[in-house]
């Protein structure tokens, strides 16, 4: 039913592939038979009205929920049954909808922890935390990339809301993931702050696969290379933004009221 | 084991389990609604037993001692909630653990001052002091049967209150969503106070009813505290039905453990707890997702 909208990919390295994912909570089918893939070098946005199953989907992908049925692969590796920490070590990075930084740590400490998590000896007991130059470098790079240069010694709790989201992304970057999952990165953000984050997200796709769930349609249509539209736990359309925008089912279900804005 | 012996052991198991339920239900209510872990719960069980000893000697009437003891515990619970426990809502578990540990030291010393550290026994009420002849050489004390009946009645009242009243609705919400009841709890200061007092009164009631069948001694609160914790871990925090299931399981395990495996009986309930933790870390009737 949704096949007509599948665009032919030029670069076809599939980084993340979900096949027929289904999640039931008791009698409620939060996610039904959802298949999607994210390619290296692209931003894939998932949109849909509230309650469409987007959050459940992202939790299934990051491993906080295990699917009732279906499979998830990163490249050739089947990660369907992996716990979140194991998925992270397999190269899957996630930023949360509600900011979940370590509030009592400084910006630098937050990012360094993330860098440490993916280092060769993340749980070393001997030697201080400053001794690993690779971690140091990755921490610094991520802070600069996320636009937080010069803010390293600030305690995370004291950052503005927008800066905390930047820190979230810096932490994800520091784990050097091949795939990034972003859950409503623009939620609750002012216009100028949002602009910064959108530019930052746009730059993430280079060399990585990015999946984003977001309500801000302007941002979605600016960022996404491909879109998947969900409703009632199902995928109703997948394709390039222009194709999805024109899709009658999508217009009927969801986009109608937004079209003027988008 | 013949049928009569089995019946006696079964009655013992149920009676033991019902007393455990009485005490543990108070603990699980206080946790479920107030979000407070109260290590001094066992101390009130001990205090209840001493009150039963003191009041029945003073009044000469066990029923009066029971009413008086429960009333004293209830008032003490109201006072404690007002003075100390109220300050713990929203504090971390460590603060709750240590404050209630401080309370234990205080209660123990008050017991020492009021009653000394002697071991006492309490006579059951005269009309319940007989035994029922089961077979030629087996009899069963009436008082133990009365405990079963009494505890079942109290359990029934608790269940009715929880399933049929507004307070009960808050209790059930508490078992499922503590965050929400904390929000509600701000509105229901009075409810908090009564819940804590009822919890304390249930612990004391447990101590009162067992006073005639066990000895009254200073350390009795500690072992009851541990057992109540095991009951709550087995059943699931905040769940009164879970406490009933857990209490009966422990009653059965302990009683029949002593019959069949006397050498390891004292650690059987902990093995049971370990098994439940492996099977359902949040308790048999606890929520699946913590």
């Amino acid at each position: 039913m949704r096949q007509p909208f599948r665009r032919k990919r030029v670069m076809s390295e599939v980084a993340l592939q979900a096949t027929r994912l289904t999640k039931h909570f008791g009698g409620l089918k939060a996610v039904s038979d959802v298949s999607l893939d994210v390619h290296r070098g692209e931003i894939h946005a998932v949109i849909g009205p509230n309650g469409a199953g987007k959050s459940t989907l992202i939790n299934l992908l990051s491993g906080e929920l295990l699917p009732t049925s279906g499979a998830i692969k990163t490249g050739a590796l089947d990660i369907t049954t992996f716990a979140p920490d194991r998925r992270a070590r397999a190269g899957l990075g996630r930023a949360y909808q509600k900011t979940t930084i370590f509030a009592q740590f400084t910006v630098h400490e937050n990012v360094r922890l993330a860098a440490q998590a993916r280092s060769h000896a993340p749980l070393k007991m001997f030697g201080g935390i400053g001794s690993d130059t690779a971690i140091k470098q990755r921490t610094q790079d991520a802070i600069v990339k996320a636009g937080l240069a010069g803010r390293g010694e600030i305690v995370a709790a004291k950052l503005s809301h927008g800066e905390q989201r930047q820190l979230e992304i810096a932490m994800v970057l520091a784990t050097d993931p091949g795939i990034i999952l972003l859950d409503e990165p623009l939620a609750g953000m002012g216009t100028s702050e949002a602009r910064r984050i959108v530019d930052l997200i746009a730059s993430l796709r280079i060399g990585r696969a990015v999946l984003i769930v977001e309500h801000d349609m302007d941002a979605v249509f600016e960022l996404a290379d491909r879109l998947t539209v969900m409703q009632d736990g199902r995928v109703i359309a997948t394709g390039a933004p222009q194709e999805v925008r024109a899709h009658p089912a999508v217009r009927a279900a969801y986009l109608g009221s937004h079209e003027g804005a988008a | 084991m013949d049928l009569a012996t089995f019946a006696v052991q079964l009655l013992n198991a149920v009676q033991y389990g019902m007393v455990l339920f009485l005490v543990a239900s108070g603990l699980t209510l206080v946790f479920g609604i107030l979000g407070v872990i109260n290590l001094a719960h066992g101390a009130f069980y001990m205090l209840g037993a001493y009150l039963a000893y003191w009041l029945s000697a003073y009044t000469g009437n066990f029923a009066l001692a029971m009413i008086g003891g429960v009333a004293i515990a209830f008032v003490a619970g109201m006072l404690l909630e007002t003075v100390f426990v109220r300050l713990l809502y929203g504090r971390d578990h460590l603060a709750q653990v240590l404050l209630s540990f401080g309370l234990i030291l205080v209660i123990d010393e008050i017991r020492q001052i009021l009653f000394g550290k002697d071991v006492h026994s309490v006579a059951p009420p005269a009309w319940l002091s007989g035994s029922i002849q089961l077979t030629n050489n087996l009899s069963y004390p009436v008082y133990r049967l009365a405990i079963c009946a009494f505890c079942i009645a109290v359990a029934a009242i608790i269940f009715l209150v929880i399933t049929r009243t507004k307070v009960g609705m808050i209790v059930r919400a508490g078992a499922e969503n503590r965050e929400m009841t904390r929000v509600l709890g701000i509105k229901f200061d009075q409810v908090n106070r009564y819940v804590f007092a009822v919890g304390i009164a249930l612990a004391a009631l447990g101590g009162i009813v067992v006073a005639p069948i066990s000895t009254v001694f200073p350390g009795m609160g500690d072992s009851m505290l541990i057992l109540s914790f095991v009951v709550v871990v087995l059943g699931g925090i905040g769940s009164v039905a879970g406490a009933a299931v857990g209490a009966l399981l422990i009653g059965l395990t302990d009683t029949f453990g002593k019959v069949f495996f006397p050498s390891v009986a004292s650690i059987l309930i902990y093995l049971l707890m370990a098994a439940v933790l492996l099977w359902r870390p949040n308790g048999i009737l606890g929520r699946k997702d913590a």
Partner: protein
Amino acid sequence: MNMTAPRNQTIIMAVLLIAAIALPFVASTYYVQFVGKAFIMGMLAMALNLVVGHGGLVSLCHGAFFGLAGYILAMTTPKYDAASLMWTLPLAMLASAGAALVIGALALRTRGIYFIMVTLAFGEMLFFFFHDTKVAGGSDGAFINTKPEIALFGTQLLDLDKPIAFYFVVLACLVGVVALLTMIVRSPFGHALAAARDNERRARSLGFPIFRIRLTAFVISGALAGLAGYLAAAQFGFVAPQMLGWHVSATILVMVLIGGLRSVTGPLIGALVLIALEEFLKATTDHWKLAEGLVIIAIVLALPGGVRQLWPMISGTRKETGRAPAVPAKARHV
């Protein structure tokens, strides 16, 4: 989590260490033994704080690890002879670590309040094991007639029966424990442990294996509690089931709270303060437990950050630090 100690703190530590070394040469045996006991309890409290303060896990079974190691010494000491420190100490610590591994593996399947109750229950299981069975004197406990020694080819190199020798062994262990814990807390492992405490979900999503991190910390903590228990049993010359009881666990938690949750050596201060307080109360009133209980309640309510909260009040200086290292993390949910 302030990981780098300021310079003046280092100087204070050095001065205190010199004072501790000088103590046996200026004070009477009574005080030397008293300080030795406080050091042992301080070691125990510091060991506990690795999981409580740095790991955010309120354990109520460290008394059991402490007592278990003491019992191992009692059971391996020959009736009329000294046990060899060289193998009984590692054995005792191994036993405590083993118990911590089993209990931790089960208890760490739970969170928050469940964790507290489960550790308490398993700790009491060990208490009842030594209380109800005849392995080492049952409820009466057992004597250690001769303190352990280090002997080589029949020559006694170190005899713990000599109070000064014992004191220096305790002091050496104390320094070792402080060094080890400082290293762990400042290491990548320590940071991961603190991260799991502050935000478990986030730490997991970054790729940290939370269960393994916590279990490792719990086992190290249990082994160090065993070291303290071994030394305590050697000092008292006696072990009793009460050593494993949960009142010990709760008392050392009080020491941790008094000293402050976020530092390595804070619990040592807490141990010194609480033991001195107990001695003072015992000397002034018959009902010292009542007074101690009230003091504990007052500390919990008034000084959630430990006695170091008093310093700014006393000296009149207030430092705005921006971070609140002494304040315990917010209540965690089950």
